[in-house]
């Protein structure tokens, strides 16, 4: 927690000092994050536009209902909640690392950076599993009167309008079977595109955090007299968590 006592009547724009009371690097990190927010925002709004423009969109509770080692158990939202909590928790360890940096406590920074890196890798592992599960999945799709088994890719979307039970019984299938018609192919493109772009941010965040960990370990920040680099890496890492909050909302919850 930081509290700053700034004298009343301070002339911020009269020259001689930065009106933002922050270092150049930190202000530029904020501007970068703002531009990145517009990039992600544009992706998500484009996704929303396409989703609003079709009559049926994939039901997230049907698409994302798997959990590692749980076989074909129907567990909607479960795995992605785990991923969300991993990312929130790694955000907490990151802010604790920044906190230790303010106190110039090298050991503390090292400990929390390691925990943050582990959190990031755990998230990436979860995403790798989820992508593999979706691409190699075999969901039944009714294509031209024939049942095919499709995975979700950027060219195939097996999550269109569900086939009614009467049709299934006519075809000699069990009425409780989950069979869909092909859906708009935009689904795979948006899902893999946006979660992939986010996952790439997580990957680069992990790499940045590893570099910061090594620099902490080598004592570079002690020599410099401050741990502001940890703060800037922290801003990026929290931004990754922030974006996930919106990806989670747009793809999995609504």
């Amino acid at each position, binding site marked *: 927690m930081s509290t700053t006592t700034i004298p009343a009547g301070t002339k911020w724009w009269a020259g001689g000092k930065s009106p933002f009371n922050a270092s150049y690097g930190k202000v530029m990190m904020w501007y970068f994050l703002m531009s990145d927010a517009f990039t992600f925002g544009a992706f998500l709004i484009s996704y929303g536009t396409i989703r*609003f*423009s079709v009559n049926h969109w994939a039901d997230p509770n049907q698409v994302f209902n798997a959990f590692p080692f749980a076989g074909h158990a129907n567990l909607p939202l479960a795995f992605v909640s785990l991923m969300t909590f991993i990312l929130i928790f790694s955000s907490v360890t990151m802010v604790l690392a920044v906190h230790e940096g303010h106190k110039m406590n090298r050991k503390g920074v090292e400990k929390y950076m390691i925990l943050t890196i582990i959190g990031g890798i755990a998230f990436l592992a979860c995403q790798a599993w989820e992508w593999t599960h979706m691409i190699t999945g075999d969901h039944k799709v009714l294509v031209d009167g024939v049942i095919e088994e499709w995975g979700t890719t950027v060219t195939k979307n097996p999550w269109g309008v569900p086939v009614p039970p009467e049709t299934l019984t006519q075809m000699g299938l069990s009425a409780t079977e989950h069979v869909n018609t092909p859906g708009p192919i935009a689904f795979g493109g948006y899902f893999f595109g946006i979660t992939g772009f986010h996952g790439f941010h997580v990957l680069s965040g992990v790499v940045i955090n590893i570099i910061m960990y090594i620099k902490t370990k080598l004592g570079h920040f002690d020599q410099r007299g401050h741990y502001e680099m940890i703060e800037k890496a922290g801003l990026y890492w*929290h931004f990754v968590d922030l974006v996930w909050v919106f990806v989670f*909302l747009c793809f999995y919850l609504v």
Partner: protein
Amino acid sequence: MSANTTSPEVTFQPEHTGGTKRIWKIFWVLSALTIVELGLGYFLYGMGNSIGYMTIISTKIVIGLLTLAKAYYIVSVFMHLGDEVRNLIMTIVVPLILFVWFIIAFLADGESWKKLRNTNAGSTPDVTEKVAPAAVNPGDKK
């Protein structure tokens, strides 16, 4: 911390006092908000088609507002933007207001696009409108 002489641009050094209490409090707030979101998500899943269109839409809007609350806490506390001077806060937050217009304009555009496609650009009646729960006529299949 007197050791914290970060750069010449910082005129007023922030005092980094206090413990980690606030951080953990925000962690619990974020977790609680996520759990409420999940609860509403499961509510939508469990209810399926037995609830009306307006209930579904309002639940989704509530989930969206909870997400905005989470975003506020992450930016304000974890990213310490709330502790910065007003000038820095405004230079970041004010441009983001453009999103309000983006969302309204583009989602409305998607909605209009759907209508044009379903009606052959307005030349035929909208067949899908009968699917809407409010307007099911007896004899209409689906």
